[in-house]
């Protein structure tokens, strides 16, 4: 049984040195320190860190770009129905806006990162030539035994973020039903292979699940850096970052239930009038403004509750059709919002 033991211990490996990256796909993206752009490549099972060089301070002016998809499609020489905008991330230094874009629909679709300046001028980020390092998420090997042409499993990546020197990656398996959260120290090094964690959380019916994390953010709770993870149908789960250790199974505390038939999409942490909030957009339940003070004071929900429970929130009625969101500056968010024609406009909005 030695073989299994060895495989089980390997979660991350294959750190590549600074070189041109070859992206096969693009999923969620996020900014790290000094203009480093983290790009997930689900088909390759890698996270690529680009030194974007885009680290000259820029103003967070008002943004209002209509019909962003046809414009991105045009830049890539195709029509709007042939692209998917998978994610957006604001460079917090330059205030340029980065889009993760798939051009084409089949397995040979091309991966592209498109940059918009605050005036809406588009260009393609040179993924082929920009300096980068990468890590391979090796669960593909670790969770597979046997040979004979059996294909390795492929994970989808649901979210990526950076906090406290670590890249955090949430994933979803296409086969067994499980949640994998990984943390990887950046700069990537072969000495630090990162951690793979299974997170369980309680549901009202006194059952637990390790269903996949859909979006997450980090904030300081009770002087401790804490991961706040949101799931389909829509529990909010609190996990201290210090608990995210390799191979651990963690029981996260469910501190809110935000409603059924819904998937949370993005979370923005902000401060207003001395209080902390999280703004969260959703597939079915609009944009929620969640009170985020003293989150340590909420104990895990362990009983069935008839309605919404835990941390209080209000739904911002004025914000509808928000499909993607990131922080623009301390008082504004940048949103990709559905317009009447079914396409999307890119706007900066005041944080409510």
């Amino acid at each position, binding site marked *: 049984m030695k073989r299994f033991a060895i495989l089980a211990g390997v979660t991350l490996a294959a750190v590549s040195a600074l070189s041109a990256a070859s992206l096969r796909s693009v999923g969620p993206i996020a900014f790290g320190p000094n203009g480093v752009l983290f790009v997930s490549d689900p088909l390759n099972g890698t996270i690529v860190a680009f030194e974007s060089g885009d680290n000259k301070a820029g103003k967070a002016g008002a943004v209002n770009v209509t019909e962003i998809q046809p414009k991105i499609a045009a830049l890539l020489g195709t029509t709007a129905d042939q692209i998917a905008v998978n994610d957006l991330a604001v460079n917090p230094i330059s205030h340029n806006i980065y889009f993760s874009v798939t051009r084409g629909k089949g397995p040979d679709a091309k991966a592209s990162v498109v940059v918009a300046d605050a005036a809406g001028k588009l260009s393609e980020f040179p993924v082929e030539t920009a300096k980068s390092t990468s890590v391979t998420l090796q669960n593909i090997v670790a969770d597979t035994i046997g040979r004979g042409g059996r294909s390795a499993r492929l994970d989808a990546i649901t979210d990526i973020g950076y906090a406290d020197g670590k890249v955090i990656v949430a994933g979803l398996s296409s086969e*067994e039903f499980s949640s994998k959260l990984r943390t990887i120290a950046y700069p990537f090094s072969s000495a630090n292979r990162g951690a793979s964690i299974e997170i369980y959380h309680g549901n009202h019916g006194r059952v637990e699940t390790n269903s996949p994390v859909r979006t997450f953010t980090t904030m300081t709770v009770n002087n401790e850096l804490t991961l706040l993870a949101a799931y389909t149908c829509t529990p909010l789960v609190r996990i201290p970052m210090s608990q995210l250790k390799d191979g651990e199974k963690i029981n996260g505390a469910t501190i809110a239930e935000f409603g059924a038939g819904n998937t949370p999409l993005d979370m923005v942490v902000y401060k207003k009038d001395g209080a902390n909030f999280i703004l969260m957009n959703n597939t079915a339940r609009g944009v929620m403004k969640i009170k985020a003070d003293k989150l340590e004071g909420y104990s895990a929900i362990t009983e069935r509750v008839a309605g919404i429970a835990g941390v209080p929130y209000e739904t911002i009625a004025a914000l509808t059709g928000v499909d993607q969101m990131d922080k623009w500056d301390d008082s504004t968010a940048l949103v990709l919002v559905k317009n009447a024609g079914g396409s999307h406009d890119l706007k900066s909005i005041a944080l409510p």
Partner: protein
Amino acid sequence: MNRFHVITATLIGLMGVALLSGPLSGQPAPQPAPGAITISMESEPARFRVTGSTFIRMIANPNYQAIFSVSVVQPNASEVPQMTGDYTLEQGALVFRPKYPLQPGATYRAVFKLSRESAAQTFTVPKPVIVPTTVVSQVYPTGTEIPQNQLKFYIHFSGSMSKGESSKWIHLLDEFGKEVQQPFLAFDDELWDREFKRITILFDPGRVKTGVRPNREMGLAMEPGKRYTLVIDKEWADATGTPLKETFRRTYTVAPRDNTPLDPKTWRVLSPTAGTRLSVTLDFPETVDSALLMRVIEVQDAAGNPVEGKVTISREETRWAFVPDVPWKAGNYVVSVLSTLEDLAGNKVGRLFEVDTFEEMKADVARVHALPFKVQ
């Protein structure tokens, strides 16, 4: 690869008139030959070419992008950016090579303007008509009975598919042909394999689990004793943009919830005979997950080395069979099964899909279950 589509447009040349300005100022006024400026397009590889310009050769440090713009005509947007690509001057012709291939069916507008020379032309890239051939080749589970807490379907296609539209084309109908609302998990990044030939469709676990709000607000997606039909519309486009050849339908009868974990003690191994390439088989008392069956089981010899061979699954995913590449040698072997194997409801070995959460988390079940067999 001589599959060029060449379309040529000859256009207005406002030639030989008046004085020059702009980039050419300060130079002696050239005398362009009367004639036409022509823009042509070739696909595969994509190329737009301007010929007939006299001035183009005379500019120092030209900004070709400002002189010759090529953009996609977007039905619902104005002021779209130019396509990204490279410009070169080749034997007097200005050539633009887009970075990405041209999109069949799309219309491109090319505009050349240099001082008094100008031309503009639109081109539509021909879209080949492809006869639909791609079909749904299999849906797992292949049986016709599923538990009420069925967790997923695997849909296999004969060819590569297009991504991003699965929620539009997959339906679950009740006995009256009425569509069950939102039975499946909504998810932006669909769960395809690398070739886009298999997609995993998860039932919304909120509606599978007991006591979770969607379950109480919307009810369970399926009721035991009733029949439901999975429908995959033929309008779903494959990777070439061509619809499927036919609609797929399969009707399942729903059995009560499966709340029993997998139990290796109920699995039966049938040994092959030494000197043959007959299969070793592993029989399960219930249908198990097809994808995991192919991935999480292997045969090892007495030294723990894996035996190479081919796996097949049959009998509605209750039988796993392994044929070695070379004939069996007499001796002791094991069939090793990872505990991540799941039944149709996501129950694993020693662990239910739903577990009482507020008890202490139990010690892990063994990661691997070894089922010994003897070849003689």
